[in-house]
């Protein structure tokens, strides 16, 4: 297991370098960002040239990349155009998005697995059908619609929550946006759990457990659910990365100054240090989450061994 984890960690290095280069290249391909710094006015060529030189933009792409990676390995992610170090942006953005992601994940896990188990155990009955319909609706409604509608209902009509999140982004204010962010994943979690439960309900070990005369709740939680969770955990694991990176829409609606916001600004302003820096960290998060999922398999199903 230790060797397995180590191998996986080593495999991350080429993935990391490859992905950063790709992102770097893509942002670079968008063109020269300096002109936009001058707004609707034509830049003064001398000043623009100086800024370009300052940002290493006058060098060929590979040298820019080498310079950038050199910075990254010394823990410095470059400077955004407004003069702020990217690490400072990260320090303010990642905790916020992390909190938001935690709310979303907890929400989708707690509610999604519960609903999935309930409807899986009552296959074909009223509850199952209504949950099925509900998840269909949730999947079909895009986040910007559900987000705006819930924001309007809770924030303006009923006044139960603030429509926007304050800069400190306390957990209580992130409840509503977290729910919005987790909604679509919630539906998938429910469906996955349900299918898995239905499948495993006829498995031999469940029949054995029933034959042994174990109490029902013990059969469900210890035997049935634990084995059924493997696909669900896989999904949730990959979802962590997806939620963090994909929070752009939710963060915009609720004015949360997290990763999505910084990425959006970075792309809009073609600020390669910001975009590459943030995506790099997201890539790491994604890789680590995947590793965690793979290691969790053995915990859930003792038959799985790592070599």
């Amino acid at each position, binding site marked *: 297991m230790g060797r397995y984890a180590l191998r996986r960690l080593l495999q991350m290095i080429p993935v990391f370098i490859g992905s950063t280069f790709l992102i770097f290249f893509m942002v670079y391909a968008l063109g020269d960002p300096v002109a936009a710094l001058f707004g609707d006015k034509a830049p003064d060529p001398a*000043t623009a040239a100086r800024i370009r030189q300052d940002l290493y933009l006058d060098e060929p792409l590979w040298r820019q990349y080498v310079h950038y990676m050199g910075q990254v390995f010394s823990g410095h992610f470059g400077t955004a155009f407004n003069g702020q170090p990217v690490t400072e942006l990260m320090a303010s953005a990642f905790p916020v998005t992390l909190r938001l992601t935690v709310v979303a994940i907890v929400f989708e896990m707690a509610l999604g697995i519960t609903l999935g188990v309930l409807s899986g155990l009552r296959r074909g009955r009223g509850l199952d059908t209504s949950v099925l319909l509900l998840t269909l609706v949730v999947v079909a409604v895009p986040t910007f619609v559900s987000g705006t509608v819930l924001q309007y209902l809770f924030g303006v009509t009923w006044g139960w929550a603030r429509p926007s999140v304050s800069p400190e982004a306390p957990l209580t204010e992130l409840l509503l946006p977290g729910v919005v962010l987790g909604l679509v994943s919630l539906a998938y979690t429910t469906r996955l759990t349900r299918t898995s439960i239905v499948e495993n309900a006829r498995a031999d070990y469940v029949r054995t457990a029933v034959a042994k005369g174990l109490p029902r709740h013990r059969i469900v939680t210890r035997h049935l659910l634990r084995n059924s969770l493997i696909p669900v955990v896989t999904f949730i694991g990959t979802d962590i990365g997806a939620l963090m990176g994909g929070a752009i829409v939710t963060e915009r609606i609720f004015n949360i100054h997290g990763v999505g916001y910084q990425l959006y600004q970075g792309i809009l302003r073609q600020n390669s240090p910001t975009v590459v820096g943030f995506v790099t960290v997201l890539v790491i998060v994604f890789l680590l989450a995947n590793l965690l999922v793979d290691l969790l398999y053995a915990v859930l199903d003792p038959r799985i061994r790592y070599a």
Partner: protein
Amino acid sequence: MRGAPYSLRARRALSALCVSAVALPLTACGGGDGGAEDGVVRSSWGDPPNPLEPANINDVQGGKVLDMIFRGLKRYDPRTGEAKNALADRIESSDQRNYTITLKKDRRFANGEKVTAASFVNAWNYGARIDHKQRNAYFFEYIEGYDKVHPVSGGAPTAKTLSGLRVKDERTFTVRLTQKFSTWPKTLGYNAYAPLPRAFFEDHATWLRKPVGNGPYQVRSYTKGSVMKLRAWDGYRGPDKARNKGVDLRVYTDNNTAYTDLQAGNLDLVDDVPAQQLKFVRSDLGDRYINQPAGIIQTLTFPMYDRAWSGPAKAKVRRGISMAINRAQITERIFHGTRTPATDWTSPVLRRQGGYQPGLCGDACRYDPARARKLIKAGGGLPGGRMTITYNADSGSHKDWVDAVCNSVNTVLRSDRACVGKPVGTFADYRNKMAGKEMTGPFRAGWQMDYPLIQNFLQPLYYTGASSNDGHFSDTGFDRMVNQANAASADGRAIAGFRDAEKVLAEQMPAIPLWYQNGSAGYSQRLSEVALNQFSVPVYAQIRVG
């Protein structure tokens, strides 16, 4: 900014729900106060893209802050746009080229330091020098010695300071310009000319984190990207002391959210009503909605460097295209009256005495399908039988109106394919294409004035080789008239001179005036006496709370 396609119908339905919900005892429409501080205005803000130095800010959001924490030599009257003395006691010249500036007595920065002649001279020298990479460096280009501190080639400067600036005593300094420029003193209300305290030069990083100025407000705290808290400064001695206790500028990534927050009572002032809400804003806010002219004009500029579009015959085509655009309909349908059809190349905020002349464009700006067809035909038709309108697709709702303009042209020319929009992915790329002379047809151009002067609407845009002459228009007659106007000793004669130059534009039509853009704002019931200045920035100091 491109907004998320919010569902308006849903919103209306919800409003109806809200009304019915009032009947229930436990629910209320409107919502909480969101932590409103007594006497403090909560206002929406956008993250300034550049560091907050006076000579480095060229966007409205950063300008908003500078306008609150700085006062320069002049200040534009928020109502009339007239340049009035602020810190300047007198600005004198006998030849329109050498100026002597005397400051008012006993003005201070918020950190207690005196505002002296050196505060200005040092700040201007800083702004002009190429090593500091200030976006607005070119504002100092008329001062003698600019080419030494800011070589056009971009190389190392041969001087550290502008030779045209001399401190005479604590309250007096002199300025020598490279050419006659009669309206120059009136440009000094622009933020780039603000004075700077010693702290700016001694500890630049600290100053940037918490700027110190000499205006009616001082910065209490600044969290980049989220909020800037400004509080009224008691030591301010100007006539426009703050009438509220302070202003919290909150960064919103989406103006729809800001608008929702205003409705929920979490925000007091939005100065950018989202396009999607314009239909409802009157019923939502009543007279708490402001829609008034700002110093912004939108044009379709032609690439005069492209032979297909230049030459006398094509002037007819350009005029014809202008006549083919139904401005009235587009401003009403697409912009809901937040733009006004343009009939000259300036802006109504200049007012007539400042050089605005409605109708100067004449017939060429009037919708006339029959004559448009005739003119385009007489000029040899569209080059290659068709044209594209280039715009950047990443911000604003440019696509909507470009398509509408093309539609209008197509209808007039009775062809579906005569005109099509041509989007460019990002604004930066768009600017680069413009700078690289890669435009093959008319392209969108917007001009936001730096100061309310007719000179600012003409010279930077249409003078040969001027900084923002993106179409590379060049006409000796136009240039001569601008030079004469700049050399005129009397105000009225300068303005008349610029008007004459503007008539050259009406004839040659290097850029089609489309519409004047309005500033729009909405505010909560907590506020009164909210107004926008000509730059569409709220006049914060005069807002009353409660």
